[in-house]
């Protein structure tokens, strides 16, 4: 661990102060649902709840903590270039983000326990618009420049405690998640004249909630695993403060409620020789989520989301004399999912492709994973808004000697 401590620190510092990225779809609800996962899972399109081994754990399925052979740290960094397009124009953003981290500890026999930090939603956005205000009534010559700014910050994150254990071919895991987050929506209008006071308002919601999840993986045979994961609905309470800036101001305080709805994911893996195929299907019942945000979200329709993830992985060779390229892992993946808010009365689809590779660490079990991907969100035809994301993700999974599973 000490060997990689510098890398760990560098990764955390590289988050650039933002634990979230930015997306044009961030406004609305609790932000864009975009859970952070490690580089390996990302390369596989997000699939993998049915796979567990001694090296990797899936941060969503606690059953994958079952087979941790030794203490594992997984951490990563995400670098994105996003291009957005809407009827009002195009814009680009570059982001470093820190998607999350996991720690897996073997405890006793097949019992493993772990901690997860995962970003769930992205509520960061910045929209600027410019206009003019006449300097005097009926003035056609002199104007004040007016800048209007819509600024969003924050998002929802999850801190989870996972535990998994195995009974013969069945691995079961349960997890308790603490949901924490802060959402800020800020609107300001300012003028390029010190005589004119700016105005604005901010809505801050500080959220918290506790949720539970149950996962299971069943090995049909040595090649096929099937899995199921249920994330129970989470009631997130929000302390909301609304403040109007400039001149007369008031603070509106009150509780708001939001339900992160039930989610069900089914997955399967098929492994033959050095090839592994993974696939997940997920559904989250957003239409049933209760939300009491006041008037700021009533104009958007929530819709149930459906997702598919599929990936293929080339496993490393175990031959001592094989070339070094054979000892690496190679991956490719595809995913399709949807935004839980309808835009322009249409669903917002997200389609992504990814490729990646993993390099085993020479100094012990562990790996460095790299992923390159492209994701498209929304369509100009149906949503009037679209986004193209090009990203690079890097992750480390380390092996530590704190706890080593002693098989008896």
């Amino acid at each position, binding site marked *: 661990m000490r060997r990689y401590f510098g890398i760990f620190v560098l990764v955390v510092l590289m988050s*650039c102060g933002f634990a979230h990225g930015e997306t044009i779809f961030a406004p609305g609800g609790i932000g864009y649902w975009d859970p952070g996962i490690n580089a390996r899972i990302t390369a596989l399109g997000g699939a993998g709840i049915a796979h567990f081994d001694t090296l990797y754990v899936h941060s969503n399925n606690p059953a994958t903590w079952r087979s941790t052979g030794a203490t594992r740290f997984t951490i990563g960094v995400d670098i994105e270039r996003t291009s957005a397009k809407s009827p009002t124009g*195009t814009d680009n*953003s570059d982001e470093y983000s820190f998607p999350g981290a996991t720690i897996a500890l073997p405890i006793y026999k097949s019992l493993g326990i772990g901690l997860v930090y995962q970003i769930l939603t992205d509520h960061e956005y910045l929209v600027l618009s410019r206009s003019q*205000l006449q300097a*005097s*009534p009926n003035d056609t010559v002199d104007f004040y420049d007016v800048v209007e700014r819509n600024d969003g910050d924050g998002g929802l994150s999850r801190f989870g405690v996972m535990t998994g254990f195995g009974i013969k071919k069945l691995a079961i895991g349960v997890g308790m998640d603490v949901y924490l987050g802060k959402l800020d929506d800020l*609107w300001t209008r300012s003028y390029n004249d010190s005589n004119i006071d700016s105005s604005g308002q901010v809505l801050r919601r500080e959220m918290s909630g506790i949720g539970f999840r149950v996962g299971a993986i069943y090995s049909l045979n040595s090649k096929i695993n099937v899995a199921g994961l249920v994330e129970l609905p989470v009631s997130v309470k929000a302390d909301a403060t609304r403040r109007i800036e400039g001149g007369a101001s008031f603070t509106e305080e009150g509780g708001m409620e939001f339900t992160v709805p039930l989610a069900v994911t089914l997955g399967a893996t098929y492994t033959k020789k050095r090839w592994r195929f993974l696939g997940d299907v997920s559904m989250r019942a957003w239409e049933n989520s209760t939300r009491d945000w006041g008037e700021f979200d009533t104009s958007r329709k929530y819709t149930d989301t459906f997702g598919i993830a599929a990936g293929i992985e080339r496993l490393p060779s175990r031959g001592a004399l094989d070339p070094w390229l054979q000892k690496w892992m190679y991956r490719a993946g595809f995913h399709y999912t949807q935004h839980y808010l309808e835009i322009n009365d249409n669903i917002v689809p997200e389609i992504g492709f990814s490729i990646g590779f993993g390099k085993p660490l020479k100094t012990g079990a562990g790996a460095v994973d790299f992923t390159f991907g492209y994701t498209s969100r929304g369509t100009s035809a149906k949503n009037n808004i679209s986004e193209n994301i090009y990203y690079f993700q890097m992750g480390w999974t380390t092996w530590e000697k704190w706890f080593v599973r002693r098989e008896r």
Partner: protein
Amino acid sequence: MIKSKLHLIPKYALMFLIGLATLFGGCAQYDSNTGSDLTGADFRGTLVDTLIPIDSAATMLVGDINKSASAYLILGRQEGMISDIAFRFSNFTRLDNPELLIADGDSTANFDTSYSIDSATWHSATLKLFGNAFIDTSDISPYTPWTADIFRIAKDFDPVTISYSDTTTMSFMLNDTFATAVDTAELEINIPLDSLVFLQMDTTLASMWDTLAFRVRPSADANFLQRYYSRLGGGESRVPVLAVNATFYLTDTTGVQSSVTSTVNIAPTFNSTLANDSFTIPQAGSLTPERLYVSQGYARRMLYRGDFASLVDSMNTINLAELWIVGDSSNTAQFSRTSLFEVYQLKDEWYDDPDSARFGTSSARVYTVRDSIPKIRLDITPLARFWHSYPDSNFGIGVREFVETASLSRRTFYGNASNVPDTLRPWLRIVYTEYKIP
């Protein structure tokens, strides 16, 4: 055996590249208008830019104000304005100082404190004024001779309250004829000695002189108003003085007697301009478009009030509040147009009796008025925000000259009566932001 570290190169190269990217890259955000459709119209404020008519406007007459602290005294009559000067001389101790005795025609003092002044024979007492400039040169009649009445006024008058209308303690002393306006750079008024009251002789000459108070008033339309230095603004050589000329009899310490004829200047202990304005504001409702007046010296102030409480909801915020007023630069009632105004908050109702208006806090901003740009924009945003929070405190604003005592002047602006065209009447412009109330 030296262990090769070549295997560390990829790791450190990667760390170096990442560090470099962190330092020189950074995070760039969306910062254009892209995605504005998604930010939620409910959460934006709506900008409202509206004009509100003034519901009350009037001229407040303050009248002659205390100008005893001014650097200048003003004397004359022009375009209805008349200005007197009042003096009080009560400190004659210079008459007891032998060091000030310089023989007429000589330039050096020949006496020191070893001498004592025994007595004096008084020859003359002359009031001297030193001019600065005309108030308004555009309409003066430079070659018209003019006269002034000189009055003795009660020596114990109150310097705080004395004003032009305070005539009960005046007694006529003499009428003096002066030269023409162009010769008013220096004025000399001879005070008849027999009109002076000398007290019982005491041990000093100063104690012989009773306090003297004079008032100088132009007795006919001199068609000018001249500015003279006051006791505060003239420096050593140009303060107004009472020049006392006498033959002084002295004795030195050895008992030798001598005499000298000398002039000793006595500075006033008080001086002020007392002003009046015979201009009459046209009656409200007359055919001419209503006008409001603001003036210096004989002070007038303009009062305005607009009520926007019903228009701007308490949830809204005020970005800008301006009072637009239009000057009537061609009006013949204007005199010596000055160009600096200040805005004050008014503290009570004044609508039935404008002269009873109470001025409160100043906006601490001075507005320049130019004839070439008759429209003036008065920023009252901080006041408007206060009224927005406390509507019952909105009694409007008062506009007055920045320094009312500095000169004599008169300026006109259009009022808000129905006979004033819309483009000329005052308007309150309010720019505010509406928020949706949850």
